[in-house]
């Protein structure tokens, strides 16, 4: 597939797109939080990938490579400061219906909580925010975070640490949010 993509073979590019699009959506959505620009960001990621296949040397897996492009795209968006507040069409997934086993109010509460946390993350510098989310939410190792964000290991560690500290300080400053988190934590431990 990679050779086909390098040669610009439409079938290979299509296969690459189908294989990775959902993952790219997920990574960008995790890093930026709810955004009406998800479609643009995913598109940018794939256009960049399609145009850069000639430079892919196979040193990392193709998934890591496209993740790096997605991370870069998300970082660029966060750094641009253009954060439109009203998510319109980018809610839910037509192909993946909600888990019918989970009560709807629980799903809504979970989303609401995540949205509030992302609103706080908006106040953290993009590089720190992205490193923190890749490490704690996406579970990438320090080495992987460093590679994905094109930073040294020390810088990645430091960014994760400071983002965590800033986020926790903000959470502590919002007693109602803290209560909600503690309640959700207690529920999940039952």
């Amino acid at each position: 597939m990679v050779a086909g993509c390098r040669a610009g073979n439409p079938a290979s590019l299509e296969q690459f797109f189908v294989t990775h699009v959902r993952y790219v959506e997920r990574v960008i959505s995790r890093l930026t939080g709810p955004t009406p620009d998800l479609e643009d960001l995913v598109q940018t990621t794939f256009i960049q990938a399609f145009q850069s296949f000639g430079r892919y040397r196979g040193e990392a897996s193709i998934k890591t490579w496209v993740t790096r492009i997605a991370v870069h795209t998300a970082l660029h968006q966060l750094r641009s400061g253009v954060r439109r507040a009203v998510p319109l069409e980018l809610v839910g997934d037509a192909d993946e219906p909600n888990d019918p086993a989970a009560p709807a109010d629980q799903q809504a509460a979970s989303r609401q909580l995540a949205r509030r946390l992302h609103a706080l993350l908006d106040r953290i510098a993009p590089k720190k925010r992205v490193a923190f989310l890749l490490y704690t939410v996406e579970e990438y190792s320090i080495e992987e975070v460093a590679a994905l964000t094109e930073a040294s290991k020390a810088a990645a560690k430091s960014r994760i640490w400071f983002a965590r500290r800033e986020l926790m300080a903000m959470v502590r400053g919002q007693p109602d949010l803290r209560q909600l988190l503690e309640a959700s934590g207690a529920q999940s431990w039952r």
Partner: protein
Amino acid sequence: MAMSCTQISRLSNASAGGHATQAERLELEAHLATCARCSADHALVLATTRALRGAEPEALSSAARERVRRAALAGRTQAPATVRRLGWPLTGGAVLAMAAGVAIWIGVHRPSSDVAVVAGDVTVAAAPAASGPAPAGDAVSVRSGRGGEVRLADATTTLAPATELVWRRERRVVELQAGSLTVDVAHREGQHFEVRTPRFIVEVVGTKFTVDMKGVKTDRGSVRVRNPDGGLIGYVDGGQSWLLPLSPLEPVQAAEVREEPAPAIDPPAVAAPTVSPYDGAGVRLARARRALVRGNAGEARHLAQPLFRLERDVAAEARAIYAESFLIEGRYTDAISAYQIVSRDFPSTPQAESALYAVAQLESEHDRPADARATLQNYLRRYPNGRFAKEAADRLAHLAPSQPR
């Protein structure tokens, strides 16, 4: 040696992210057992991480994903053509324009390096200072007499006769004041290209399109149309057109909202949602999806139903939302029926494929193995290389013919 609270907070972070070793976890637990503050902090970190991880990340609808696929593939294959198109005007365009003797360049206060008349009867001048809030020198006024071609930054624009526009280079916005223009522009990361008219805005997603004062026609790629206040009207993909309604202030009639009640399905148990006069199909679909996300199935159905008889792509998405609304209520039989309609009536849309696989999933998970087998076989026949082909084949393999109903 015992760890300090600072060291422990790093371990807490690593543990929450799933990176701590067994030894580190034991050390963490030993510290937490004796330090109430760290223990509370760790609980909060865990809860925060779980909350961020637990909420499903937002995903594109299948229609949006399809738009991205088309635009991305078009961006890849058409980029060289764009370069050629831009290269020709840069090298030979000025000579041609002079030779033809029809291009007129009127001096501006600050010569614009990103505006160039390529051909035709076109006048470029500094826009009057009162024409916008942008800093002086930002705006350029462009007028065509008998029509022509102008480069605005990286966009090639073809102007119809008697077209007037203002180009705001900082924001990459064209304010169309009269006439019409065709724009050919590649998608650029982090940079939007907009054409604004008094009544609507066209945002480029990476494409070639024509705008006049009444609407937009997309030749290639996709554009997003918004109200002047920013509200989404919808997307116009390659080969499609969108025209302003005759009266944009005409509200959606209540009767229209309530038509086509679902047979054998409960009426919505919610008050009719407010419908804005500007609610286009895209906005209604978005609102219906948001209602679904909130778990409000009745409202989602109520918003989706009036769209059933609109154009194919919109109707297919509305029908898919309708089906999904039953799913979140646990009404699986209704969901199956609704998904079957999507699959049967909109066979060439991306929703049809998802719907057919959803039917198979529901049938196999709700004690209808024979139906599930038939649906999966049908899916594999229709979509041998489909997005769910592997899952469908696996699922089919696990549905033994003798499995009791």
